[in-house]
């Protein structure tokens, strides 16, 4: 009972409307492919930054829905973000955690810490309005409209299939310059789209 990054992002794309989406790690690859938009902001190379980038956007743009496409390891890096998101309590805020239980998903598939971590319980304990674990595309499809129509912040932990990892015959890549400039470029594009460029 789980889905892959692309299946999950396809459902998010279908329902996003004019939502601002911050994203990181493997969810970044999927949302970029499935739902390209000037309203997307990648936290790269900055593992852990997506949740509070989304919080800042939600504070400044309270009329718009904000979706955070976080990773499980990424959220563990900045777990304190749950506290301030719950304090601010942005109403139209959905925090997805793509939980594949890995570091470097699809590349090295190294284990992450926290085998017993319950992200939904932590979000509720921090003060999120709701939290649920979703394991199928159909369940995500059914849940998302109601989440968009009710006050958040909402946590949605997605059970994501771990992809096959590269083999030892597959060399690690030389990252392109784009990896290091896209955050600034996407920031500029989002500001143009929002009319906040300065």
């Amino acid at each position, binding site marked *: 009972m789980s889905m892959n990054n692309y299946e999950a992002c396809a459902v998010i794309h279908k329902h996003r409307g004019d939502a601002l989406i911050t994203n990181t790690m493997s969810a970044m690859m999927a949302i970029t492919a499935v739902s390209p938009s000037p309203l997307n902001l990648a*936290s790269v190379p900055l593992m852990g930054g997506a949740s509070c980038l989304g919080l800042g956007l939600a504070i400044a743009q309270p009329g718009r829905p904000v979706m955070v496409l976080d990773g499980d390891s990424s959220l563990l890096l900045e777990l304190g973000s749950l506290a301030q998101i719950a304090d601010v309590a942005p109403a139209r805020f959905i925090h997805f955690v793509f939980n594949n239980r890995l570091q470097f998903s699809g590349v090295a598939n190294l284990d992450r810490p926290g085998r017993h971590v319950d992200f939904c319980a932590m979000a509720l304990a921090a003060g999120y309005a709701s939290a649920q674990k979703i394991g199928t595309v159909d369940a995500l499809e059914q849940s998302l409209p109601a989440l968009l129509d009710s006050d958040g912040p909402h946590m949605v932990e997605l059970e994501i299939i771990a992809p096959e990892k590269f083999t030892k015959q597959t060399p690690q890549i030389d990252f392109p310059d784009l990896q290091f400039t896209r955050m600034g470029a996407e920031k500029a594009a989002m500001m143009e789209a929002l009319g906040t460029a300065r």
Partner: protein
Amino acid sequence: MANSDYAVPASRVHDILRDKGVNAVTTVPDFIQFALHDRLRADPDVTYVECAAENQALTTAMGMYIGGLEPIIMVQNQGLFNCINTLRSVGIDGQTPLVVFAGAFGREFSNLGKPLAESRRVMVNRTQPVVEGLGLPFYHIETQDDLPKIATAFDRARADKRAAVVHFGYYPAWT
């Protein structure tokens, strides 16, 4: 000079922030800047967000900036050391003109009026070299004569689309 001669009035810093259009603060509170924290928290025109860690203060501020607000980040020197990678990401690669206010926690009073490099304490004497090592401008506030540097920090950050650091060497006064 008396120690109080190094205490710049928080009200004057607040005035400069108003002039520069600052309307939001993200912070992991700083032991040095209590008087400024107090004023900004009480300002109804300022959105003030307490964060659990400095990385989160920086990324929340970047999101605010993209969304149209004009935030500053308030941390202490230890906090600045704690978020170097995020500062690199949002303040250099991300081209976000965020001004970071950092307090010189741990600065011995005997160092007042002297170069920071002569402080006995690493967190004091290495802050400027670390910031400048990143290629970011560093503006040290030692006395009231240095207050114009704050406006300069905003102008420089906005012109270069990069972060800048304003460093308070002593407790701002509660006036």
